[in-house]
């Protein structure tokens, strides 16, 4: 892949497209990547991050993280901070899967405890956490229950026994985005989402049992605060979002915003960047509707955590508490939030869009659990199902990206190309030979998610670390996987 001639190297891991790269750019665009990653980045990333730089009210830079790849509207890995009074809100800067995110759960088990029970665990998880196209959740909810969840998020479920109080303390926003207004959500979103709570979804969504290989704890004291005490410790990591409910909210408002753009005389080079002034009635309506989807997403992951605890408890004949199944954190990577940041020495309130980028608040910042105040927030990064995943921490020098970092390893191969190159059953067999037991709803999806379709996760983390936007704490290796 060839990068644009205008791309300037700022440091070993920061690359800039100046405002002169494209007419209409309000700010320069910056891409975080090592030389190796920038060389493999697809052309869509450069075009899309330049497009983002054209949005009204964008502050400082349009950013793309080291796992950046060609998306729709924003690149995946895109970050844009908007001035709330002059700037816009764009569903394309958040993604259809609103508040899609990661949750990491501890155990006090080692790989030696889990290996003999691995197939039972994964088989049961595959059954108890529905995945794939058309899957429906096991919990029976009335429409009124669902409506309350759109307002109360994971809290509604925890209050009814589907989780522990401490789960909420260790979830971004405590599992509930305040100010959600379901009256701004279409009936279609309710219809699509009502039966899907507690389901994993498909594509790159997954649930994995992972463990710490010797030598893969890079920051012992922080790891200990996060609950990772020793080599061989087993954890569970999963990735999913707001399901059809969130997809419908985004779909509805993209159309509202197309009309709003005419009304407010806003132009954008891609209709997927459809947007409205944040302060406009349309912008505010989307913001409170989006919060409903944020809450559904937190609730979805809460219900999945409940099932994971149930399965482990049944298989090991011990309570989840006795197994030390505490949640490390739940953090989203498709969202827009009002946050305070220092820009050129001035404290400003900004609307930070992160699409395929994880918030990575540093030590001492508000909005992260008290227990992580000294370390910086845990940042959960899912790699490909064959390679590994990371737990990072936010750092003070993350201010350069509005405290945002990578969200995964990022694809290098399109889904269709991966499907041509790999066969799902071969991938499953190869993973079994590597000691990873996998269950899937779709062998086609498994082929699309083959490790070779992704960037090198270690290189991506190295880029984020060298750029000082987050630091690695632990690397996890997969041992069992449920794929949607």
């Amino acid at each position, binding site marked *: 892949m060839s990068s644009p001639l205008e791309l300037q190297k700022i440091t070993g891991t920061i690359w800039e497209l100046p405002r002169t790269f494209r007419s209409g750019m309000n700010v320069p665009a910056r891409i975080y990547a090592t030389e190796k990653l920038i060389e493999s980045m*697809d052309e*869509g990333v450069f075009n899309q991050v330049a497009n983002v730089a054209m949005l009204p009210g964008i502050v400082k830079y349009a950013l793309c993280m080291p796992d950046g*790849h*060609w*998306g*729709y*509207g924003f690149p*995946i890995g895109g970050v844009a901070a908007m001035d709330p009074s002059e700037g816009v809100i764009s569903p394309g800067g958040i*993604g*259809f*899967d609103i508040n899609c995110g990661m949750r990491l759960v501890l155990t006090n088990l080692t790989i030696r405890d889990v290996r003999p029970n691995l197939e039972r665990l994964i088989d049961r998880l595959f059954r108890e956490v529905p995945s*794939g*196209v*058309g899957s*429906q959740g096991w919990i029976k909810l009335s429409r009124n229950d669902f409506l309350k969840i759109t307002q109360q998020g994971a809290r509604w479920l925890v209050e009814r026994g589907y989780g522990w109080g401490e789960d909420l303390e260790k979830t971004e926003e405590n599992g509930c985005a305040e100010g959600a207004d379901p009256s701004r959500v279409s009936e*279609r979103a309710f*219809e*699509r*989402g009502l039966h*899907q709570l507690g389901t994993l*979804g*498909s*594509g*790159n969504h997954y649930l994995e049992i992972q463990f710490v290989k010797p030598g893969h704890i890079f920051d012992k004291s922080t790891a200990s605060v996060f609950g990772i005490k020793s080599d061989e410790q087993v954890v569970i990591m999963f990735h999913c979002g707001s*399901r*059809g409910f969130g*997809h*419908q909210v*985004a*779909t509805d408002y*993209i159309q509202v915003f*197309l009309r709003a753009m005419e009304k407010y005389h806003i132009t954008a080079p*891609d*209709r*997927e960047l*459809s947007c409205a002034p944040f302060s406009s009635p349309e912008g505010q309506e989307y913001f409170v509707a989006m919060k409903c989807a944020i809450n559904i997403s937190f609730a979805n992951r809460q219900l999945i955590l409940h099932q994971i605890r149930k399965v482990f408890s049944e298989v090991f004949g011990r309570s989840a508490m006795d197994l030390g199944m505490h949640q490390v954190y739940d953090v989203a990577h498709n969202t827009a939030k009002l946050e305070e940041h220092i820009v050129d020495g001035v404290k400003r309130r900004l609307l930070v869009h992160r699409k395929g980028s994880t918030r990575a608040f540093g030590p001492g910042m508000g909005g992260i659990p008290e227990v992580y105040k000294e370390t910086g927030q845990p940042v959960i990064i899912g790699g490909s199902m064959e390679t590994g995943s990371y737990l990072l921490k936010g750092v003070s020098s993350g201010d350069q990206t509005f405290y945002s970092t990578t969200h995964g390893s990022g*694809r*290098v*191969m*399109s*889904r*269709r*190309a991966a499907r*041509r190159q790999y066969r799902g059953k071969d991938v499953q067999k190869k993973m079994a030979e590597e000691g990873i037991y996998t269950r899937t*709803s*779709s*062998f*086609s*999806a498994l082929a*699309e998610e083959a490790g070779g379709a992704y960037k090198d996760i270690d290189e991506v983390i190295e880029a984020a670390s060298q750029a000082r936007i987050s630091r690695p704490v632990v690397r996890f290796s997969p041992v069992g996987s449920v794929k*949607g």
Partner: protein
Amino acid sequence: MPYSYIEEIVTADAAFRAWGQTLEETFISAFDATTNLMVDDLESITKKEVRVIEVNDRSEEMLLFQILQELIYLKDTFCLFLRLQKASIEKKDGLFIFRGEAAGERIDNTKHHLAVDVKAVTLHLFSVRKTDFGWEAMVVLDI
């Protein structure tokens, strides 16, 4: 097959081109292309249930956008895999009015070889245009 998936773009999602001699045929192709992303073999879908799809919009392009959204809505809400059987489009008072019948059945993972879920229709590179041979649509779907 009157549609073809595009490998080179949108790394994490899916894109296709669909063709037909008429707009109706093109929309039927696009409908199949979307369903075929979710199920490996379209022929495995038995026509047990029929759903009427009626949408309208001010352009041919947005009409297809609405139709494909309808497919996704029916998939999520009623767990249906559907194929468009009949389609008609008329233009009235500046509006394109689509009426179609989609037939299919409930998603059954013991019968259908599932592929990946389609979350949404995006407007990225979305187009419907007249060609020398009929019509062509280009669609990027969120996976």
